[in-house]
């Protein structure tokens, strides 16, 4: 068994986890909202990309764009419907409502896209790179580079621009922020639309690796939870490191212990962390 290959696999897996978790990190950490439809949005992002490529014949980059736009519109609709709950910070109801909406998305997608597994056509995911005994695909390189760029962009945006501080002000106290002339509804809407677009992008990048099904999404949700909680809720840098770290852990666990129980192992890491450091690794 090749240790170096497992490190490569881990980085490949981990950049995917981090990429899918980015939207949730912002949503939960910056705006203090939750979205339990995350897994179904991932599934829908993958199918939107698949539909654009296979049925509409669009090239991969345009298909990604189409998936992002489609999920942004969906996100805007979802958030508009939930705005009353969002403004009253009713997290309990929000969790349940997003879970219900996720279930609707699952049923609706099965009706539209059918129950058969599909594969995203992609030349990048079949283009192998061999470096001696190591191998990976150009798709993996794309995911890693895109994830690093995205995290850098989002970090700069939330930390260094005025809009970043506006979002944090709204998360802290929506009513007070409105007194200062900030339209909290618009801010929440934009953050949620960002979450949906980010997960669409993540799906379009990560999903070509394996067949897609309308019933998928649970594994992605668990990995996202672990990344977000492990990284310290809302910490962008923490989420990136947690994603890569989790990827390495999963790669080694899958190779040396049991491939079938990787989700359970990730959950074990989460539980251990919650007992030792309930506020996450990056908390002081």
């Amino acid at each position, binding site marked *: 068994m090749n240790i170096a290959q497992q490190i490569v696999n881990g980085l490949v897996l981990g950049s995917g986890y981090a990429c899918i978790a980015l939207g949730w990190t912002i949503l939960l950490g910056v705006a203090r909202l939750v979205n339990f439809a995350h897994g179904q949005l991932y599934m829908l992002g993958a199918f939107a990309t698949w539909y654009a490529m296979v049925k509409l014949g669009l090239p991969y980059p345009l298909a990604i764009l189409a998936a992002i736009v489609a999920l942004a519109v969906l996100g805007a609709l979802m958030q508009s419907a939930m705005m009353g709950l969002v403004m009253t910070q009713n997290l309990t109801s929000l969790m349940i409502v997003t*879970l219900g909406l996720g279930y609707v998305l699952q049923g*609706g997608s099965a009706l539209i896209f059918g129950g058969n597994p599909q594969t995203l056509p992609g030349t990048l995911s079949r283009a192998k790179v061999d470096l001696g005994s190591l191998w990976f695909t150009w798709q993996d390189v794309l995911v890693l580079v895109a994830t690093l760029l995205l995290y850098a962009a989002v970090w700069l945006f939330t930390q260094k621009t005025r809009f970043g501080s506006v979002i944090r002000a709204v998360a802290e106290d929506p009513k007070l922020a409105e007194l200062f002339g900030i339209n909290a509804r618009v801010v929440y809407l934009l953050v949620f639309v960002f979450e949906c677009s980010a997960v669409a992008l993540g799906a379009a990048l990560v999903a070509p690796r394996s067949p897609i099904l309308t019933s998928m999404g649970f594994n992605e949700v*668990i990995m996202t939870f672990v990344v977000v909680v492990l990284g310290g809720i809302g910490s962008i840098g923490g989420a990136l490191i947690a994603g890569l770290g989790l990827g390495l852990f999963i790669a080694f666990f899958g190779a040396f212990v049991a491939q079938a*129980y990787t989700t359970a192992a990730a959950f074990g890491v989460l539980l251990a962390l919650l007992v030792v450091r309930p506020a996450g690794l990056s908390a002081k």
Partner: protein
Amino acid sequence: MTVIESQSSSLAPSLRAVAVVVLVAVGFFLPRLLGGTSVAYSTLTTIAIFAVMCYGVDIVLSYLGEVSLGHTLFWAVGGYTAANLSVKYGMNGWSTAIATIGLCIIAAAFLGVVTLRTREFVFSLVTYAAAVVAYEIAFNWDAVGGSDGIVGISALKLPFGFATYVGGTQEELWPVAFALLLLTLAFIARFRRSRLGTTALMVQMNPPLAASLGVDPRKVRLAVFVISAPITGLAGWLYAYQRAYVGPDMFETYFLVMMLTAVVVVGRRVLVGPLIGTAILIAQQNLLSLGGDWNKIILGSVLALVLIFWPTGLIGLLRRFGKARA
């Protein structure tokens, strides 16, 4: 709050007892009143089992105001315990039920203690993740059933010393399901008036008051969560005998969405709310089904729309009409 007060004070105690006895009698003979067909028996048995399943979530959601997304885990623990112990060791219904209660309490206590120091939504995250992970384990671990599950669970046997009650058919299982439902209702009614129940409600309704009285909301959450688990677990226990099969499909999101919808659709903190909610939803799925995918859309939409537009449920709507007329 008003719901609880009005129910206990509107009728004289003796009159109330008579009303309860009449309702129980009518409830017991309901399948016969609906024609006595096997469809009537199986539908009502399913409603009773699913209602008990929902009451586990109801305790946590209605009285504590927290969201457990992991009750499918206890539901499956009940089913898998009944299946494994009865098929492999030939245990009777009492033994499997006791094992179910014990295992559910252990699982809930473990999850509750681990999340004791976390924020509320992390509790929901972890319970949700626990159910998904348990699914993975049940699916891959052949010793408890694996991806095929366990088939051929023999009829439920409940020995009473002198005789043994055998629940082989839907008609024979109905009295057991009905008894379990009554026990659950009695337990919930008792819980609402118990010290823990009122404390939980105080934590939900008036956190500053609870804090000033020295109540630790997280310990209350743990206690209520642990109590709620065996209720859903026992429903899963009976479900295994009803279907004579358990498999990884017991972890499906369907059951989770079903539990939450049944609780919110009629209105939270209403004693018979989850029962009526379950009856409405099962009736739609069994009698007015539009196919699996459409049923998913309906169930999910009902859950989302009720919480967005009528957070008080059907009861709240009725009250609003009542007030508008008066």
